[in-house]
């Protein structure tokens, strides 16, 4: 499959704080790639770096190429015309991402007006269509409501309508369902799966929730303390994880699903390093049960086996 997004050796730092280091990744055309990591692992930074939406004080090294465009080499005006057209963004907090003083319909319609130059009434009509497309009931009424008058799920759908208004080939979604209740969450997940199948777009889905991963992703990338430690097909990651961190992550998830009352839940010992603190060597070594002296010295080179990549000196499972 063709790669829509090519990330090469990406590193992001805020002044002295290094948040991402040496991330190379591709998002293929028509796939849903989940990026998993815990809070502070740099997963939001990765998403925003791919969208070229990091705050101005962030320094970015490496390359992000989307559909042949080298994003960080583009002049500002070219980048602007690609936003919304090439990349759709669904940010973390839908309420904060909606302008409180504009009706949601207007916030969808302006995408059509700015990019396609259509008249205001025509843009409004298309905005209502877009809202209907993301399964918002009574879209012509909802369009004239203000964000605070919508439920959490409706807000998230409205954001999706904005992000997908121009049918961009890439959707970047940063934990969009974290704040939602379970039922709304699964509705949104089902909706995204349907929209993805309809349009054939690629989705980069950021999450910390293995359940969401299992429900949604074709492929999974695991981020730990600013480093990419494992990438592979969803089933491989869930059933034959190679990195000790992924293994532990999957185990906690399985325990939660299957664990009976009274049995102790599995938990990874220790804590991740504070955000932006880059350890020499593998960042997981202080918590890793299999760590050897070599793990402390240098971050391991990636090992490949078909579709499956792991950055570990002592991979688990059938790798060993």
């Amino acid at each position, binding site marked *: 499959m063709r790669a829509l997004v090519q990330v090469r050796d990406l590193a992001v730092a805020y002044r002295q704080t290094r948040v991402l280091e040496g991330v190379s990744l591709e998002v293929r055309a028509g796939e849903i790639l989940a990026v998993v990591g815990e809070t502070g692992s740099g997963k939001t930074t990765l998403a925003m770096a791919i969208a070229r*939406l990091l705050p101005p004080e962030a320094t970015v090294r490496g390359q992000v190429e989307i559909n042949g465009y080298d994003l960080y080499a583009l002049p500002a005006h070219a980048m602007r015309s690609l*936003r919304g057209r090439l990349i759709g963004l669904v940010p973390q907090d839908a309420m904060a*991402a909606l302008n409180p003083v504009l009706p949601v319909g207007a916030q969808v319609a302006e995408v059509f007006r700015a990019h396609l130059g259509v008249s205001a009434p025509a843009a409004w009509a298309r905005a209502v269509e877009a809202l209907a497309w993301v399964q918002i009931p009574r879209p012509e009424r909802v369009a004239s409501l203000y964000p605070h008058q919508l439920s959490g799920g409706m807000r998230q759908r409205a954001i999706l309508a904005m992000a997908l208004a121009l049918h961009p080939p890439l959707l970047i979604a940063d934990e969009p369902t974290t704040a939602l209740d379970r039922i709304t969450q699964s509705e949104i997940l089902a909706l995204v799966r349907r929209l993805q199948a309809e349009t054939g777009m690629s989705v980069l889905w950021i999450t910390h929730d293995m359940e969401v991963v299992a429900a949604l992703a074709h492929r999974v990338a695991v981020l730990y303390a600013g480093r990419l430690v494992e990438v592979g097909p969803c089933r491989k990651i869930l059933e034959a994880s190679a990195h000790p961190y992924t293994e532990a992550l999957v185990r906690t998830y399985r325990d939660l699903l299957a664990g009976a009352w009274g049995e102790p839940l599995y938990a990874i010992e220790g804590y991740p390093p504070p955000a932006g603190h880059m350890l020499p060597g593998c960042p997981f070594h202080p918590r890793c049960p299999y760590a050897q002296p070599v793990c402390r010295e240098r971050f391991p080179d990636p090992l490949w086996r078909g579709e499956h990549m792991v950055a570990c000196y002592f991979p688990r499972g059938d790798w060993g």
Partner: protein
Amino acid sequence: MARFIGARAFQGLVTLLGLVVLAFLVQFVIPGDPVRMLAPRTPTEEVAQRIRAQLGLDRPWWEQLGRYLTRIAQGDLGESYVRRQPVARLILGRLPATAALALAGVLAEILLGFPVGVAMALSPHLRRWLSGLNLVLLSLPTFVIGLSLLLAMGFWLRLLPTTGGTGLRELILPALTLGLAGTPWYAGVIRDRLEESLGSSYIRMAVAKGLPNRWILVRHCFPHVLPAVVTMAGMDFSAYLSGVVVVETIFGWPGIGSLAVQAMQTLDRPVVMGTVLVGGAAVILLNGVVDMLRMFLDPRAREGIG
């Protein structure tokens, strides 16, 4: 909504009543006898008594207060001791000039403050210079700004008249004085609101949608700034309506402010009271209007009062 307006109106009335009572009582402590100001020559004790009785000044203070309150409830502000005219007519006669100055002053504040605030938020380079300018303007009392303008534009550059009047050319300097005095306040609030908005998630989302910067600024940021500007403009307008004493004095502008000053100097109690009352009412009323307007501009606030 109706309940909210009712509550606000009641609160406003209480404040106004307090203001009137306070102002009324204060006059009893003011040294000086209005009768002496009224009589053409030093009156005999008998004549003075008669005038006092005629004006009701021989009554105890609570009775005078009660009578005054009953009268203003009927819309009667009394008669000027000095000018022998109804106070309401005197004040109404001065109102157009004061309203014109208040309006022009608020307009000048917005026209000067808005671009300065926006420039400060958008350009870190201009920001240094403009905040220095703002600090200097903040350091000057209004009458010094007025006199400086008079000196520079009137005497040095000879662009504008230095003597009083009510024409449009005569309005420029007083309005500009109010405008310059208000600029740092407006610019500061506009800058703060704009910066808050520019760093917010919804602006990032707007950028992510590929909207042009000017569009984002005008359609997404300015609505965030507007309620604050409306609030300030409304508060200033109402404050100026009660008379801009200093500016009216410097530029010889015949408004309520100069009327109040004259009345105070001549111990013309009904006129003093009338200006206090009208000024206070303007402040309270317009603050209520501003609150409504702000609610209209911010959809979130509308719900809370349903």
